[in-house]
């Protein structure tokens, strides 16, 4: 049995004149991956392609080295939690998940045991014998997740799994997702709530307007975007004097602001130079440095930057920068031969 993976090679999908996914190449290996993108960016289409519900219009999608569409040999390894709030409302949670296990090849008794365990894992042990039409939104979400893992898939596709869940449910769900990733499954987790992904993984795929704009480790991607000016924020005892020193030593600083009486923020095209200058001053004992942070290093900042950039460059043919970021990011995760495509 080949190792679990999701691989896309120049995959595109369009519906009539609408392009939902365009020329996406990526390779997801075991672990948790965050699939990020604004609404309508193509996340759900990509997950449906990976789950074998759709076929790509051009290119190919492979899961565990095989095309998934209507392919039982691959589908047995895939678990999908769809985005839509749709369940068989007239069935109990236990009947529903057990039926899904039966369709995955388990005998009725074993299917029922597995269903009970999966529902218990997601905190539905007290509600599993009730009709799902009476479930709350969070319970419905957990029932959907239970059916997606009931057959122990090693490729787990979760489309906005935290929608409508309360903090306790989120904790349960994130815990289960993290565990599956640690056990060696490929978990692809789509969301547009960025801190959810940050809490789970540093491996992200960023999709905007149907294109993969970046993939890989969030910090590595951030570093690759060298042409994008960085913010560097320093909290110290005399911020105005520090600003003067940094402006004198670092040529890349374009803007200096003072968010508070003890903080100074630099916008620089050469942030390493700023870090080095601040470090020198700190070592020399000239300033009492309390903190040194980069607000741009958060996933949210990166996400907004890439999405805005993708929107600005769409249709202008001027997406070389994004293409470069994507190519380099892909190089870190995809096989060498695909990185050169």
């Amino acid at each position, binding site marked *: 049995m080949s190792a679990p993976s999701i691989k896309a090679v120049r995959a595109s999908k369009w519906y009539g004149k609408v392009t939902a996914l365009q020329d996406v190449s990526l390779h997801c290996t075991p672990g948790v991956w965050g699939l990020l993108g604004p609404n309508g960016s193509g996340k759900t289409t990509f997950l449906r392609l990976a789950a074998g519900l759709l076929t790509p219009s051009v290119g190919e999608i492979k899961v565990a080295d095989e095309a998934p569409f209507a392919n*039982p040999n691959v589908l047995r390894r895939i678990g999908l939690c769809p985005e*839509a709030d749709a369940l068989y409302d007239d*069935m109990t949670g236990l009947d529903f998940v057990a*039926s899904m296990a039966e369709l*995955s090849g388990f005998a*009725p008794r074993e299917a029922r045991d597995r269903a009970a365990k999966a529902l218990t894992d997601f905190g539905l042990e007290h509600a599993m014998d009730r009709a799902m039409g009476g479930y709350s939104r969070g319970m419905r979400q957990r029932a959907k997740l239970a059916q997606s893992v009931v*057959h122990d898939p090693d490729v787990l596709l979760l489309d906005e799994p935290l929608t409508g869940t309360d903090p306790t449910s989120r904790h349960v769900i994130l815990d289960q997702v993290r565990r*599956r990733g640690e056990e060696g499954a490929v978990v692809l987790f789509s969301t547009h709530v960025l801190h959810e992904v940050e809490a789970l993984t540093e491996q992200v795929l960023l999709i905007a307007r149907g294109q993969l704009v970046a993939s890989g480790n969030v910090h590595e991607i951030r570093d690759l975007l060298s042409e994008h000016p960085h913010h560097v924020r320093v909290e110290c005892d005399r911020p105005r004097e520090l600003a003067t020193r940094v402006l004198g030593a670092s040529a890349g600083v374009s803007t200096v602001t003072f968010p508070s009486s003890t903080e100074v923020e630099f916008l620089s095209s050469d942030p390493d130079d700023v870090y080095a200058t601040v470090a020198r001053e700190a070592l020399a004992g000239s300033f009492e440095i309390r903190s040194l942070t980069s607000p741009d290093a958060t996933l949210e900042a990166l996400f907004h930057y890439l999405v805005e950039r993708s929107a600005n460059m769409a249709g202008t043919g001027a997406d070389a920068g994004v293409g470069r970021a994507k190519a380099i990011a892909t190089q870190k995760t995809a096989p060498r031969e695909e990185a050169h495509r």
Partner: protein
Amino acid sequence: MSPKPPPAPDFATGLVAVTRLSSKRLLRSRKLRLAIASLVLVVGATLVARYAMDVDEPAALMRDAARLGFFGLLGYLLPFLFSSGSIAEEVETRTLPYLLMRPTSRFALALGKYLTGVLFSFGLLTVGILVLHVGVYATTPSAMIDELGSTGRLVGGLALLALAESAICLFWSALISEASGLMSTLHLGAIEFALGMMPFSIRFVSMNYWATQVAGLPKGGFLADTVPDVESWIAIVVVAVVTTAFVLGGMLVVRMSQFGFGKA
């Protein structure tokens, strides 16, 4: 411990799983209650009329009730209720991904849905006709035994009807899921019912007509005398071939279709 997904189920296992799931859902559905209510009304009204009007010829009454109530109504209605939404409703309620992402073969999925529809339709029709048989001949025990053969033929005809009409409904449900009810209604109404009443060989396009021939019922409709007589075995073969074509068509559509998953 890494996850160990089970091997993909074979065709028969998948078929049984789909049939079990579909049966569980139908048993809980209001459609089943509507179907039972219709059956009870037809059988009940016939039996009330039988005894309230002191009918001389129970065998003729049985034939009339079968022709109008079973072959003229329930034989369309029950397969329509149980099969016309089998795929389309899953698409509409967005539950189809749960089934299509499973390793069960899509052929087994379509066939399982079809068999469930046939099972429920034929089951109810058979129960209804047997209850009618017992009720109509309750006061004449010898006739109850003598007429078993005729009633058996009716059951045979109804079996063919359930197989054929369910196949037609499944096919439209898979092919045009957005308007499966409409397409099934038009097919059953225009081809199965209306053309089944036409003169000459036109009515050969209606499976309902062939099924009534197997059941041993007299030809009705316009200019019935102009319709050529055909052996029962030919009727059975025709219905079997057409049914198989519709079922295979439905299975192929389910195997190949992406069912508009592109729409949000």
